[in-house]
């Protein structure tokens, strides 16, 4: 069903007024403190059923998506590991991914998370979440790390996919770092390189989103706007849709 905003200029203006309306700064700490008290809320009983929103771990797409989201938001400090130690959890469908990426969190793989300093947990840095405008506080150490346990045997035949995914991640990470550092053109060339090496790569969406943001950054507003519209048309429910819309807001394309 085509949206009215695409067929009617007035609706489009109304919708953009809604999207650009000012919203107060969230009282994050106050709210989190209230949440942590865990007190019952009068509306608890009207909470929606969780069933339709519950975790389902069964698709490669989801795994790639989660990984991509983590990469794009700067969460994952990755390493391609030859570690063969048993995983903490077995997840159905995971076999479809013929390789292994280890986030820094994997250091805690069989230990308890609390044994680690919390700073090393790869929880998403909120400052990096909504926009690329803020410069990073410090360079992200997102280079490929050496295997944690080099003595572990290498899985036979896994080399090709591992190195290919590793290469994909490297390029995407390179683009992301450039973007965070405010270097739009470096980001664009990394994305181009990524797309030419991996025309059907696992992170093509991440590449597209970064291209849009980088174009906006270097002042190619028109092209950024056009690509953003195209992205939203073909990926209306992408987790990046909001992010792309916010670029649209910034470049001022209706």
């Amino acid at each position, binding site marked *: *069903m085509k*949206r*009215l905003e695409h067929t009617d200029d*007035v609706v489009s203006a*109304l*919708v953009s*007024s809604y*999207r650009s309306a000012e919203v107060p700064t*969230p009282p*994050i700490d106050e*709210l*989190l403190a*209230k*949440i942590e008290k*865990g007190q019952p*809320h009068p*509306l*608890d009983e*009207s909470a*929606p059923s*969780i069933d339709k*929103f519950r*975790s389902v*771990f069964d698709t490669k797409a989801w*795994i790639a998506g*989660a*990984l991509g*989201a*983590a990469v794009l938001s700067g969460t994952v400090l990755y390493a391609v*590991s030859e570690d063969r*130690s048993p*995983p903490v*959890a077995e*997840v159905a469908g*995971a076999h*479809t*991914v*013929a*390789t*292994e*990426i*280890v*986030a820094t*969190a*994997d250091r805690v*793989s069989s230990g308890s*998370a*609390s044994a680690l300093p*919390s700073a090393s*947990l*790869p*929880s*998403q840095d*909120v400052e990096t*979440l*909504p926009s690329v405008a803020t410069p990073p506080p410090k360079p992200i150490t997102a280079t490929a790390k050496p295997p944690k346990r080099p003595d572990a045997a290498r899985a036979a035949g896994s080399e090709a996919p591992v190195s290919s995914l590793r290469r994909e991640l490297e390029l995407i990470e390179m683009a992301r770092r450039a973007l965070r550092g405010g270097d739009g053109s470096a980001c664009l060339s990394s994305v181009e390189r990524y797309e030419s090496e991996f025309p059907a790569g696992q992170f093509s969406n991440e590449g597209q989103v970064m291209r849009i943001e980088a174009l906006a950054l270097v002042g190619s507003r028109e092209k950024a706007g056009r690509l953003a519209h195209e992205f*939203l048309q073909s990926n*209306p*429910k992408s987790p990046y849709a909001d992010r792309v*819309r916010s670029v649209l807001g910034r470049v001022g394309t209706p």
Partner: protein
Amino acid sequence: MHAGTLVTAMLRSQGSLVSSDSSARARLRECVTAYFPAVHRFLRGLGVPPDALDDAAQDVFLVAAKRIDEVRPGAEKSYLFSTAVRVAHAVRRRYVREQPTDDIEEAAGESGAVSPDALVDQKRAGALLASLLSGLSEELRSAFVLHEIEGMTLTEIAKIVDVPRATAASRVRRAREEFQRRLERHRKRSQGES
């Protein structure tokens, strides 16, 4: 089981499955930071009165936070919106129901031609939108806002408002018709005046 480790790592980085306190807290913080503005806006779209918006937005998070760790990464926004629909319903019941107004010009400020240019004035556009939306029933209004403004698919809307997809589709269709009817009426009036 390499792939298993991958998934574990990912889940941990997303703050689910492994329910360490700090990752759960981090995920919650992310959700609040990332979605508070969207939830606030959405509640306004649903017709929560301006002076009740801040509290209602907090209510959404207070209610949703209790189970957000069970929500699939990527589905947080839908879950929060689903909670918001219910919170908005409760808040609207508490307040005097908004009167659907036919006097759109009055609601939208000074009269004049309705053109995209004239609506550059955000306040005016916001008031006109609010007025047009206020003519829709609660069910149609949420369907309209979710589809036309928030850009959700029918499948997502069905989950959020907890109805079958066909019902969601029918609501969206009727809501669009009603909205367009009201907009046309407003256009004719403003053309007659200019």
